[in-house]
């Protein structure tokens, strides 16, 4: 398995005020695979993920040094159009946050913003991505009801469809199943397995078994430092660092 690098992080440092939460992180995230970022709570996983689509910009008092290259372009370059960078990436958050509008409008929101206006085109897009997120059958008769009327698990799949509808190349997911019941979690995991041939998926997870099940590539972060990264098999079966071993055995968490 030798994929080209899709996201490349070089000497990334992130500070919240004086508090440095990422320390000199360098990784290469391969194209069209699932990469899992694992590590104990508060070690900077979410922060790292939020650097990739520059949502980190929205935090007051943030300082970022170093580079994040997506397809070779430095996304923190001030010349870059941040909306174009974000359009390349769908985001799934810890809890689903549907937009305050109907199910249909949630999916149509992104394409609308990027210039698709025609009703029939939008209809096609909405159906296509709701199907891709495996929620079409459940909602096809209630497309115009508010998205908040769905169950949490359905909302998360709707959010997946919403992200896919802007035709991203990358899916970023921050503990996407942590608020879901087991059945809904499995549903999301299955979607990821289907999608990984077409998208680069980067997911943060607390659940080691989930990382084992899904990930091709694993990144282990501890206290803001990148300890180890490599193919899933290597990390789980043959970690190089003592601290990785302990984390994987559950000695530290």
């Amino acid at each position: 398995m030798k994929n080209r690098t899709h996201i490349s992080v070089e000497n990334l440092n992130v500070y919240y005020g004086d508090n440095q939460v990422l320390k000199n992180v360098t990784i290469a995230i391969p194209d069209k695979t699932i990469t899992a970022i694992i590590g104990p709570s508060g070690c900077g996983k979410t922060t790292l993920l939020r650097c990739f689509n520059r949502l980190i910009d929205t935090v007051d008092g943030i300082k970022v040094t170093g580079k994040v290259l997506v397809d070779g372009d430095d996304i923190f370059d001030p010349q870059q159009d941040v909306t174009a960078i974000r359009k390349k990436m769908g985001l799934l958050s810890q809890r689903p946050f549907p937009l305050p509008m109907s199910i249909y409008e949630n999916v149509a929101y992104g394409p609308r913003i990027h210039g698709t206006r025609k009703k029939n085109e939008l209809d096609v897009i909405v159906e296509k991505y709701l199907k891709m997120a495996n929620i079409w059958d459940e909602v096809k008769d209630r497309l115009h009801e508010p998205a908040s009327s769905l169950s949490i698990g359905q909302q998360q799949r709707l959010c997946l469809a919403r992200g896919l509808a802007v035709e991203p190349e990358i899916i970023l997911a921050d503990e996407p199943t942590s608020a879901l019941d087991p059945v809904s979690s499995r549903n999301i995991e299955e979607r990821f397995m289907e999608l990984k041939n077409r998208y680069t998926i980067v997911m943060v997870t607390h659940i080691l078994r989930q990382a084992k099940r899904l990930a091709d590539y694993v990144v282990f972060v501890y206290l803001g430092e990148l300890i180890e990264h490599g193919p899933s098999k290597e990390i789980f079966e043959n970690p190089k660092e003592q601290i990785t071993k302990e984390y994987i055995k559950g000695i530290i968490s």
Partner: protein
Amino acid sequence: MNGRRLVDNIGGKLMLVLTVLSGVLLLLMAWGLVAKSSAILSLKPLDTLLFSGNWNPLRGEFGFFPFIAGTIWVVGVATVIAVPVSLLTAIYLSEYAGRKIKGIVNPFIDLLAGIPSVVYGVWGVLMIVPFVKNYIAPLYGTFSSGYCVLTAGIVLAVMIFPVIINVSVEVLNMVPREVREASLSLGATKWQTVKKVVLRRAMPGVIAANVLGIARAFGETMAVLMVAGNVAMIPKSLMDPAYPLPALIANNYGEMLSIPLYDSALFFAALLLFAVVFFFNLVSRAVLVRIEKGIR
């Protein structure tokens, strides 16, 4: 029962009593206004009182329409000025301003809220009246003393800025950060996010904030009294004087009471104001409480 529990118990009961008392006070006030205005209500049909333009207390004619129209004009102008300005300010403060700017601006807004209305009145007389007289009226090609609907509207608008801004900012801050992030992560610009997602989600609360501000404008006696001109006629334009209800009450209560029915008429005016302000407040508070509890 030990001492601390006793104190706790008594404290709780006392607070309950005080809460009930303020409710009772409100009822008493309403009842007093109704009782006092019943004299005029029993003699004149309600629609004459509300919609007749004849105000001639000496001849026993009590048509409140000029005052009602004056109130609506002045509050209308204040609303037209205050709503967009305070809404944009609130959006700026909650969505765009950094911590530093907020730290500078917020105390000023609170200060604005704390200024007594009589000071706003004086400010209106000193600054807005001459401004309207010398610059705005000539622009219209008319003469105005400066004591007019527009002046009163401007002064009231400034008075209700802080109410609308503060409540709107609070409501906007209640929209979860993640909802904004969801929109941004789809490649929406900040303004698209604000317009299509944040405002949409916050809309009931924003409306409530505005209604609260408008309710305040209805009742602001001193400011309006000092700058509106106080001529009992139906205003036809922004440059005409107006005689809003609060000014009518404040100017005449205690002065003209030798005229039969006059005091009852003033109580009726007060009842009208009370009812409108009470209703507006009730509706907007109910909406805000629901939002705070997360019912949508």
